């Protein structure tokens, strides 16, 4: 499988309700129930502009308003995401956050996964990670912290929708 390089940028297209008063919201990085990855797109892939244009043209709630042709995106550097480690209280869960290509729908599509060991953490699941057999960390708490970390690492950009 192709590896996304550390210095590569990925973008998270933003629904208009994920930017409030010009501020990116943590829910832009929330997982759906049973979902294992957050969808992003890779500008380095040739089809990126066309993929983004096609998606937003069919999901116009990603434009900042009904009358606009402007959309927003959150930009992340793959290496910054990849080296996120999560500590929660006195418990340290060696959770890895990985970006992998997923060209199922669009060639430029990729996913940000949160993993504990070889297990992808899923959204909406009331599960716990057991550490050392005695300590337990709720998965939702880990995912919430990952969301905040991704939020802090993001740069908010505004773009005009172009026809790909």
């Amino acid at each position, binding site marked *: 499988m192709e590896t996304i390089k550390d210095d590569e940028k990925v973008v998270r297209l933003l629904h208009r309700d994920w930017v409030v008063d010009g501020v990116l919201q943590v829910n832009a990085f929330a997982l759906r129930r049973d979902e294992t990855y957050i969808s992003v797109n890779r500008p380095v892939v040739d089809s990126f502009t066309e993929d983004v244009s096609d998606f937003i043209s069919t999901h116009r*709630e990603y434009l900042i308003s009904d009358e606009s042709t402007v959309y927003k995106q959150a930009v992340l550097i793959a290496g910054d995401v990849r080296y996120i480690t999560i500590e929660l*209280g006195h418990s340290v869960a060696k959770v890895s956050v990985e970006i992998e290509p997923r060209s199922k729908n669009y060639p430029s599509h990729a996913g940000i996964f949160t993993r504990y060991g070889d297990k992808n953490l899923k959204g909406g699941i009331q599960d716990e990670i057991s550490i050392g057999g005695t300590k337990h960390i*709720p998965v*939702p708490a880990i995912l919430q*912290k990952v969301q905040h970390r991704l939020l802090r690492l993001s740069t908010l950009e505004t773009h005009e929708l172009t026809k790909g």
Partner: protein
Amino acid sequence: MEQNSTHTDMASEPVMARPMTSYFDVMSYLHRIRITPEVKESIGRRLLLEATEPYLAKTFAQIDHLSELREDWDGYGAEKISYSVLENLREVLLISENDDWKYWMISPAPNGTLSLQSKQHTASLSVGDEEFSYYSMINGKEDWADHVKFAPSSFLRVMRRIV
């Protein structure tokens, strides 16, 4: 047939014979149900507060807006915002002061919940149907909780503590 939603734990959305959108609709309804002059005065004062206090008014409007999101609103299968979640936040607003909402922003999550995000700190609260969770990192000190049974007063207490 019109069903009045008087119980706050109702999980399903009430069915209205026709929506009440005008001043006369609402006033007619209020005059049909029996409420004391004291309750009427309280309602009047509260409505005035909500309409004239900017943070409360804005938050009520934002919740109304988010209630209109439909299934698959994010294009990836997101759930519409749960009626119980919306009602939970409205209940918090009903016991809030205007300044309680000065530093909070609200956004929808794909699993049908809503999150409050602080303008001042790394902090968020997530509101579910029956529980809420929160995470904050303020001045290097981390605080978080999961599966907290939702009650408007306890939720508001956390909001005030974080802000």
